[in-house]
């Protein structure tokens, strides 16, 4: 079960839940599981969220594997100028 | 839109009067072209005066100088004798736009654009210059401080144009200076401009002084009280303080995107005082 943490900017879409554990093997499964549990989060997930897996940031990396004991943090995507 | 480049004053005057107000004089063009591009003016005829010899001549006359209205700023700056006689006027000319703009811009154009912040006008006022005008009714001369009517308006009648400036003879121990305040060191429009022209007697006492301010009213101002503050003094700190106060008191500025009223009033005094110090130092060196 990977430990999932959400940045506080996503709290409004998860009724304030910011930490949970999920049985997921990659980022895509993570988004599906979160989308089912928190429908309001769904529109933000696929294109608007970056994922930090054991402190390495992955943007748009749906197939990136998530290990059993990984620590995963969801953050909003970063763009630049 | 037609373009004509006459090589005599008479032809130019005929062209201007025959266009019933729909013609504009083209000298350097560095203000006129910007106004045409932004649609603020849409002339039917441009009369280019640069081919008229009288307008591009700089000559000593009656001990003073007659400066053609269509001489470019760079030509004036590069004229060593003129810069020695009137360093303050050259200060003002040096502030106009960039080197590139000064390669085309003229004192005649700077004056006729009638911007309250024109950089060459305050020093000409302090110098006591006369504007020599030619038109259908012949020639006339006007003290420069009376030439501009208000922002964008001159006192030229139909068909008239500015032919030259007449500068009086310089008595010994005279010096003039012009300073302006702008946020940037170059490429700016004066938020405040101050010109001082003064003469010292052989004991170092100020015998003659004229002070003019730019960008603090609807047109460049001659400020008699400021000049009076210097006359009869050795231009010490007290005299300079009185000068600064008189300068600030004369301001009738507006708030605009370049500065606030309070700022212009305060800085006018500072610029006038600093310009007076430079003019005095130059007068001391000018035997």
């Amino acid at each position: 079960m990977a430990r999932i943490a959400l940045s506080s900017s996503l709290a409004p879409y998860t009724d304030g839940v910011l930490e949970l554990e999920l049985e997921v093997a990659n980022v895509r499964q993570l988004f599906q599981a979160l989308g089912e549990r928190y429908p309001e989060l769904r529109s933000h997930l696929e294109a608007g969220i970056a994922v930090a897996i054991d402190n390495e940031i992955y943007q748009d990396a749906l197939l990136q594997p998530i290990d059993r004991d990984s620590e995963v943090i969801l953050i909003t995507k970063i763009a630049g100028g | 839109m037609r373009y004509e480049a006459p090589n005599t004053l008479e032809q130019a005057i005929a062209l201007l009067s025959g266009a019933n107000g729909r013609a504009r004089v083209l000298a350097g063009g560095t203000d006129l072209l910007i106004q045409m591009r932004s649609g603020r003016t849409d002339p039917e005829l441009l009369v280019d005066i640069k081919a008229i010899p009288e307008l591009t001549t700089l000559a000593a006359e009656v001990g003073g100088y007659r400066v053609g209205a269509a001489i470019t700023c760079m030509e004036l700056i590069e004229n060593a004798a003129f810069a020695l006689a009137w360093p303050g006027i050259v200060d003002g000319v040096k502030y106009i736009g960039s080197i590139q703009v000064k390669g085309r811009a003229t004192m005649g154009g700077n004056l006729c654009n009638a911007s309250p912040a024109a950089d060459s006008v305050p020093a000409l006022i302090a110098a006591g210059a006369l504007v020599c005008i030619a038109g259908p009714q012949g020639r006339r001369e006007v003290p420069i401080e009376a030439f501009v009517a208000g922002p964008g308006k001159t006192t030229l009648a139909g068909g008239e144009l500015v032919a030259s400036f007449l500068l009086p003879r310089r008595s010994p121990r005279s010096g003039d200076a012009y300073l302006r305040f702008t946020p940037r060191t170059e490429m700016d429009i004066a938020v405040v401009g101050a010109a001082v022209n003064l003469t010292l007697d052989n004991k170092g006492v100020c015998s003659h002084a004229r002070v003019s301010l730019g960008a603090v009213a609807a047109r460049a101002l001659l400020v008699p009280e400021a000049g009076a503050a210097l006359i009869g003094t050795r231009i010490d700190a007290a005299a300079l303080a009185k000068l600064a106060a008189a300068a600030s008191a004369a301001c009738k500025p507006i708030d605009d995107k370049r500065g606030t009223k309070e700022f212009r009033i305060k800085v006018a005094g500072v610029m006038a005082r600093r310009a007076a110090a430079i003019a005095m130092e130059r007068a001391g060196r000018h035997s």
Partner: protein
Amino acid sequence: MARNHVSATVNGDQVEFLCETGQTLLDVLRDELRLTGTKEGCGTGDCGACSVMVDGRLVCSCLMLAVEAEGKAIQTIEGMSAGEALHPLQRKFVEHAALQCGICTPGILIAARALLARNPDPSEAEVRFWLAGNLCRCTGYHKIVDAVLDAAREMRGA
């Protein structure tokens, strides 16, 4: 709309063109004579990207009518190198990385050459005040000034 006939020389070549009275020299250089090295950054004489030489005088070509070029000798960036041999300023600008995007570079090179023609040994302040009419947003001017001073040294054999 009657058009004016103008003949002039550009970079040593005789040219003739027709132009509307309102057309600027910059418009004609770029749109009629296809010399696109001179750039428009503002159209109001505030940025210097359109700098050219007219009869040896440094000017903004956006603030001069094309019709005023009659009989004049005009020099643009395209005429600054002689065949393959770059002008020392052009070489030094590349060597010193004195340009990034390059839109302001033609105007600055023309202005810098005009400076060195009248003052072969300028101080840093003299370079900076002479080039104040040429805006650059990428470099912060540091390497531009270094390149001009270095070219000046080479040109006067210092």
